């Protein structure tokens, strides 16, 4: 079992700080999502952990042993980890079984042992009997699972996944979510997966690390991130919701002169409130606003309301409200975004 | 009578092959390897090898004695005075046995049978009918051509003026005898200065060309053969010289369409009587001494 520690890890490409002093610990058996917009450095962190890139500063330790630092590097082939690339990176000149067997051959196992473990790994991803198939003829989800089997076959306890669901269509996505969940349960491996899709991160991980421009913004359980985002970036990136500015006096928060029930720390005379649509309801009495636009979303109408001060909030209405119409809404819950 | 023999020759491919084949038929134990190229090129090659310290050739069989004189002077040739020279005029071999002429190759005039004027004299080539229609080998690339140039300028009353007149008449001097044959047989030029055997042989095969021995006489090279001092197989080389000079070898030369050097061998078909061929005299030693000057004079006239 492996604990991975990143200590002020920094990676520079030329002038570009891809990863900027990232420090966090990945506990044994944890399932962590690296979440962030495109280019924020997620893949780079994964590649630093895998050993494909050398840190510009800081270090990486596996179970206390330093494996990566600007001075020295354990090469990827000696880190004993499994990685699934976004592209799957199956070798087209080998069949499914040979792809899966490769890591075992690299470790010098015998024929019989290899065959047995390859069979078991294919079983695990529900691909028993696919061994002789060419990888070219597989569907996206099947490739995904072959790649997974290849990374599992050595019984490694670190599994790295780079946008594992990005290339799959909606149905395959749901199926693979199940596979990952099952896998984590069964193997107890330390899993790190990279995604730019907050719903994936929230649904799968027991720990989410949000990155922006190379800097760790917040790290915590999914509920924590959603309910108590540490700053405006996380508030905007995770879930839907709008920030509005409220006034603070005597420790009480008011919006449009009405008191609001809030969670979080009050500081100074102003507060940035995160209002999520599921916590807002139309009410006869409440904060006055005007409808700006309504868009059908199936389950309801995503309605944008404008406050008197020009700020906007998002609310889900059951009917289509005409733009311009004055309404009132009530706030059931709000979070004061720090900073 | 076994091993191999390396022959550097300026004979055309086919002839070189036949000569080698005939020799090997006579001495089955000996393999002949031959390399063919124009005389200056084959010499350039030989000298480059010499410089690199690994000359490969045993026997040289090239167009002219001028080159042989030079090689002899440098001591690069092996004397073979024991060679059997019966039937050879004394002028046809070196007194020390350094080289031996094997045939007479004369240079005359070839014309395309479609031409209206049939030339009889060298001077006919300066006539207006021939304007722009003359091809000739360049002495800068062909050894025979150089000797031909020297012979004509020495013997014709006009001297170098003849060549100036040729140049004025649009004569094109380039490449070797093969290029001249191609040009005249292909009809691109109507007249050409060329060695005798090429057009006579090709005419026999049906090519639309004919050869003329001009009235003033023809120049001749004698295609001498010599053993190199650096030869790896001197014994085989001697056998080869003997073979070339023998009646058998001379018959072969005749059958290939050349005038044999040895008396008493019949001339090939298509040639006039031996007595009718007037060969103009020429001084090899002087030619060697003036080689550069002659080349430069020629180059000046033809703007090369």
């Amino acid at each position: 079992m492996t604990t991975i520690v990143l200590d002020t890890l920094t990676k520079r490409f030329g002038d570009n700080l891809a990863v900027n002093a990232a420090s966090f610990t990945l506990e044994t058996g944890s399932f962590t999502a690296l979440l962030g917009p495109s280019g924020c450095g997620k893949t780079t962190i994964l590649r630093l952990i895998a050993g494909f890139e050398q840190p510009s500063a800081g270090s990486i330790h596996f179970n206390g042993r330093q494996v990566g630092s600007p001075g020295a590097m354990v090469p990827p082939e000696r880190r004993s980890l499994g990685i699934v690339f976004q592209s799957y990176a199956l070798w087209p000149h080998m069949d499914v079984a040979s792809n899966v067997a490769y890591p075992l051959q690299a470790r010098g196992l015998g024929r019989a042992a290899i065959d047995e473990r390859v069979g078991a790994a294919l079983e695990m991803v529900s691909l028993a009997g696919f061994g002789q198939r060419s990888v070219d003829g597989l569907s996206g989800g099947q490739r995904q699972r072959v790649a997974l089997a290849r990374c599992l076959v050595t019984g490694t306890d670190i599994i790295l996944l780079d946008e594992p669901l990005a290339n799959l269509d909606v149905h395959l996505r749901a199926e693979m979510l199940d596979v990952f969940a099952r896998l984590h349960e069964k193997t107890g491996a330390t899993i790190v997966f990279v995604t730019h899709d907050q719903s994936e991160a929230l649904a799968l991980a027991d720990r989410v690390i949000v990155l922006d421009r190379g800097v760790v913004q917040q790290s915590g359980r999914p509920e924590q991130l959603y309910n108590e985002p540490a700053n405006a970036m996380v508030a905007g990136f995770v879930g839907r919701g709008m920030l509005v500015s409220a006034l603070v006096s005597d420790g009480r928060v008011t919006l449009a002169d009405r008191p609001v029930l809030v969670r979080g720390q009050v500081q100074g005379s102003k507060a940035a409130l995160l209002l999520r649509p599921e916590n807002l309801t139309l009410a006869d009495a409440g904060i006055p606003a005007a409808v700006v636009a309504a868009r059908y979303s199936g389950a309801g109408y995503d309605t944008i309301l404008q406050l008197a001060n020009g700020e906007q909030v998002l609310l889900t209405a059951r009917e289509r409200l005409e733009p311009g119409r004055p309404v009132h809404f009530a706030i059931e819950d709000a979070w004061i975004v720090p900073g | 009578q076994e091993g191999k023999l390396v022959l550097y020759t300026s004979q055309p491919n086919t002839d070189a092959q036949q000569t080698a084949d005939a020799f090997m038929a006579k001495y089955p134990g000996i393999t002949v390897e031959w390399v063919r190229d124009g005389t200056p090129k084959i010499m350039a090659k030989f000298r480059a090898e010499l410089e690199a310290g690994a000359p490969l050739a045993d026997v040289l069989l090239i167009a002219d004695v001028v080159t042989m004189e030079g090689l002899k002077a440098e001591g690069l040739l092996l004397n073979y005075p024991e060679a059997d020279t019966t039937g050879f005029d004394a002028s046809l071999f070196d007194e020390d046995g350094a080289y031996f002429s094997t045939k007479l190759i004369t240079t005359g005039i070839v014309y395309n049978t479609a031409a209206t004027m049939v030339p009889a004299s060298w001077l006919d080539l300066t006539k207006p009918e021939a304007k722009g229609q003359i091809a000739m080998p360049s002495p800068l690339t062909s050894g025979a051509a150089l000797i031909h140039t020297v012979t004509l300028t020495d013997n014709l009353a006009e001297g170098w003026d003849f060549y100036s007149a040729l140049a004025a008449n649009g004569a094109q001097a380039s490449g070797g005898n093969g290029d001249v044959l191609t040009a005249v047989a292909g009809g691109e030029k109507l007249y050409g200065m060329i060695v005798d055997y090429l057009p006579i042989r090709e005419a026999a095969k049906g090519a639309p060309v004919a050869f003329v021995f001009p009235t003033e006489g023809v120049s001749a090279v004698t295609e001498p053969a010599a053993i190199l001092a650096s030869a790896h197989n001197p014994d085989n080389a001697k056998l080869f010289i003997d073979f070339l000079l023998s009646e058998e070898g001379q018959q072969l030369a005749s059958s290939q369409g050349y005038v044999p050097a040895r008396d008493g061998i019949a001339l090939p078909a298509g040639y006039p009587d031996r007595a009718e061929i007037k060969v103009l005299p020429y001084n090899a030693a002087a030619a060697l001494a003036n080689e550069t000057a002659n080349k430069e004079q020629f180059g000046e006239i033809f703007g090369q």
Partner: protein
Amino acid sequence: MATALFVDGTFDASLLLNRLVRGATQRAIFNTLDTSLFGALLALMLGGPFALLIAATDMPLRKLQGFLLILPLMIAPQVMALAFMHLLGPSSALLGALGLAPPPGTANPLLGRGGIILLFGIQHAPIVFITLRAGLVSIPRDYVEAARAAGMGPARVLRGIVLPLLGPYVIAAAALAFVSGVGNFGIPALLGMPENYLTLATLIYQQLSSNGPTVLPQVAGLSLLICAIAILGIGAQGLALRRRQFALTRGMPMQFALGRWRWPAAMAGMLALSVALLLPAAALITTSLVPAYGVALSTATVTLDNYAEVLLRQASTMRAFVNSSYLSLLAAAILALLAVPLALGMARLPRTFARLAHGVLELPYALPGIVLAIACILLFLRPLPLLGSLYATPWIILIAYLMRFAALALKPVEAALGQLPPDLTEAAAASGAGAIRRLLTITAPLVAPAAAAGALLVFMSAFNELTVSALLWSSRNETIGVILFSLEESGLSPQAAAVAVITLVVIMVLLALLDRLSGRLPTGVLPWR
């Protein structure tokens, strides 16, 4: 290269200056620039429309035409020149049969400047075609369709959108064609030397072959001149390109519908190709079937004797076939084996070093063969410490081939490596495989087809090669190119034609073989696919 030229301590600037002021040299410089420039323009005019029709329209027979158009690149220039001379001369059997042959006494219209330019145009049209085609398929159809939706007809779209986007490729194609012309020996040798119309390449050859190694220093100077012109051409291209690189999006390549012009266009293309290729080939075949040059082909005169002569009777021709075969095979095999590690190594180098290494590898291919040959003579004439002198051995030719064709073998492998996603090897590393194992089990098998394609290209080019071996061959080590040239020089045109026909057949067979392999190659390795 330069070091090779200076290795011989006798190089001396005054010699070069002496050369330069000589009329013959000045004329040769002018002729070289003249023919290369106009040849490049002609190649653009020939290859450009074909590239457009084949890459960007629905013209029928596209693939066939692409294949045919590429042939001149695979056929030795001297064979090409020979074929055209036999086609257009007064004794042309083909024209004769049609009653169109010019009367005897008419100079072959191809001799001299015009013919050289024409053949440069034909010989280098494939380069233009390949380059422009690569450009055309990189222009996504969206660009064209957006313009048509904007209301522009096909002709104006071509002028306003396609040509400007193609600009860099046009410049690259022109520069390549120009440099190829500067370095070409076979065509000016056959079409220029008979008329004393010399280019730098033929001037060097003539100097060297009539004077021997004594003129090497002067000749080295002339070689430097060619290098300078070639480098100038490439440099000008780089300069012109710097200002016009566009970032293009990716997408399906464009395609214009020709409508009712489909078949007329195809016919016109086939006609042009027949004139440029099939007719001269036919002329070559005809010549190879007559007993002597100038004899008209008829049932009475037709003979296979030339083939019998070169194949059965002349040991040298057979030897040349064997030599060329094993030299090219060896070169191809060695380069195929070296290509993968070499390409990988170069990819690892820092950018500037990689570019330098590329330059070093590409130069021998871009340079005239004759210059390379001289460099080899200078390098290997003197005995080497362990090996002794390589001159006058086949090894010097092999080494020259390896230097000359390394770029050819490397190109497809680099293309394949470039297309190889890095994560394939990274996945292997993560699986615990070390560098050597990765190379052997992942990288090498995946790029093997490309290496094979490169090897075949090397084989074909080396099999035909004349310019390098013309100066490097020695007793028993003659190559086909040398034999061909020498037969032609001895006035044995029909036999030369027979040899040329045989090499043509070999090349065609190889190309067909390569075509068969195409399914397993990365895209873009086979220029006609």
